[in-house]
């Protein structure tokens, strides 16, 4: 980027060459991505995780097509029916088909995880970049705030936010997302602090590149690998936290199917109709397992030094 720009500050030929050399991996970043994907592809756990996760997402997206029954309609002839060919996962105390409800439940539980972590990643990364790059008073203010938020365990903060905001799908996403921000800010800030001193970043600054372009083009690429890993594993945590809040009655309310509230529904029937809770729980577990496998694979692929951790 800065090669076309006239140098505002004279820098020695050696530093220029060094800058060019350090920028080289940027130009060849397709190669790095390719390498990472190849390493990911060789990891059987990550491949299995990707396949299962893709299947779960497709099933949720196409739930209206795949589901044999309406997820909310009550059916008096199927009340508490055990799993059978007619009702694959059985039916609950209103005669609603559990299989259909699990499929539709994914349309709630999955977006909660993905959107929440989307919010977290954008805000967390932005705060981390700002704190790490500018340092000084900005850094102090942001990090004191992060320290304060870390004083609240995730669920406590999420519960407090739900109490303040009230229960709705969006508020649930917001509460789960906000609760995870401090961790991202900390990791990003740490990475920025070390990247800021790298020669190619110093060179870009000295050559007069504006802050925005230094941060976005030179520092951000360093921050992305840990954030990708953190966000992938974070989606799993967010899905669990979201369904936990619904399980506690503080999230998505019945009759709208959501994996957490379905589990809570079946709790009192666990003794005789185990299937009412069993299958939604299995759905959460499989999804989270798949994401964890993919996340572990990504960590190994993006940062081979972390293997065995």
């Amino acid at each position: 980027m800065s090669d076309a720009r006239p140098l505002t500050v004279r820098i020695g030929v050696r530093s220029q060459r060094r800058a060019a050399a350090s920028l080289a991996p940027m130009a060849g970043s397709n190669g790095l991505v390719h390498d990472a994907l190849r390493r990911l592809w060789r990891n059987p756990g990550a491949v299995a995780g990707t396949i299962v996760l893709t299947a779960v997402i497709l099933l949720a997206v196409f739930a209206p097509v795949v589901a044999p029954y309406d997820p909310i309609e009550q059916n008096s002839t199927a009340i508490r029916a055990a799993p059978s060919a007619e009702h694959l996962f059985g039916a609950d105390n209103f005669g609603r088909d559990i299989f259909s409800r699990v499929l539709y439940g994914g349309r709630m539980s999955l977006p909660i995880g993905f959107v929440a972590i989307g919010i977290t990643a954008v805000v967390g990364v932005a705060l981390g970049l700002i704190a790490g790059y500018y340092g000084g008073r900005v850094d102090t203010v942001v990090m004191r705030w992060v320290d304060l938020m870390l004083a609240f365990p995730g669920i406590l903060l999420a519960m407090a936010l739900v109490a303040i905001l009230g229960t709705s799908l969006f508020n649930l996403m917001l509460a789960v997302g906000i609760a995870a921000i401090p961790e991202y800010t900390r990791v990003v800030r740490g990475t920025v602090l070390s990247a800021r001193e790298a020669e190619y970043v110093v060179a870009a600054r000295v050559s007069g590149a504006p802050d925005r372009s230094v941060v976005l083009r030179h520092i951000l690429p360093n921050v992305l690998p840990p954030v990708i890993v953190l966000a992938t594993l974070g989606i799993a945590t967010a899905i669990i936290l979201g369904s936990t809040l619904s399980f506690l009655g503080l999230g998505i309310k019945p009759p709208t199917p959501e994996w957490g509230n379905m589990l809570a529904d079946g709790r009192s029937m666990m003794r005789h109709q185990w299937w009412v809770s069993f299958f939604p729980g299995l759905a959460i577990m499989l999804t989270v397992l798949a994401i964890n496998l993919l996340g572990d694979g990504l960590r190994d692929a993006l940062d081979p030094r972390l293997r065995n951790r």
Partner: protein
Amino acid sequence: MTRYILRRLVQAVPVLFGITLFTFLMVHLTPGDPVLIFAEGKPLSEEREAQIRELYGLNRPLWIQYRDYMADLLHGDLGQGLRDKRPVWDTIQEAIWPTLQLAAAGLTVALTLGVPLGIFAALFHNSWLDSAAMVVALLGVSTPVFYLGLLLLFAFSFHFHLFPATGTGGLENLILPALTLGFASAAFIARLVRSSMLEVLRQDYVTTARAKGVREQLVVTRHALKNAMIPVVTYFGIQLAGLLTGAVVTEQVFSRPGLGRVMVTAIGNRDFPLIQGAVLVTAVVYVLVSLAIDLSYAFIDPRIRYE
């Protein structure tokens, strides 16, 4: 050493201060007039509104309200529950012991399962035992606490009738909740101990010990394990958050009394004085325990004192 302790103590002060500011502001951050919270959804006459504003000091400037809130806090007064009109502190005091008991039992399970699992996985690195241990650990990390709780209930309470499903008091009432709560932490600790052990076992001093002819058992317990446990202690803070989270859910699954139940019920009732009190006490306990862990870390790992 003293300087390190003092510094950590001083650092905790603004955090504690911030927690009180957050819990104080909770009422004011809710959409709508705080008066509506204290009116508990009942129709509000002008006279009644003025009465509530006076009673809760809502007619005074925000900073004076905060000053009064702090003054009450320092006198151990957390206000009164909107529903039961009981002092919030009494409700919390009753609930905090069952929760701490559960957390301690869960931690015991986590350590007694997680540490050996991690050690064996590392000692038999790349064997079937290692793979099996890591599969168990992965399952533990991926299973939501409430799901595990329900599965354990179904298996051990309803099917085999080994333990009671609900209730408190005896040890038999604590076993299933403790397993439920401790399993995820056990999985986390197992992964941590394994990777930490693998690293330590490669160190020169372990090779030296082996070369000296020290028995393998002693190499592992004396030389490797002690050093491998340091990161485990560091991650105790994270585990603590996990245990607290799990305790809230476990209490719900097994219908146990505790702070989590108090909070869930209070949020359902929009009983803000109780919510504020429960959030405050939990956060303060969490900060103080984290602080204690940090300080104990300085004793365990002498390197940190010189930082």
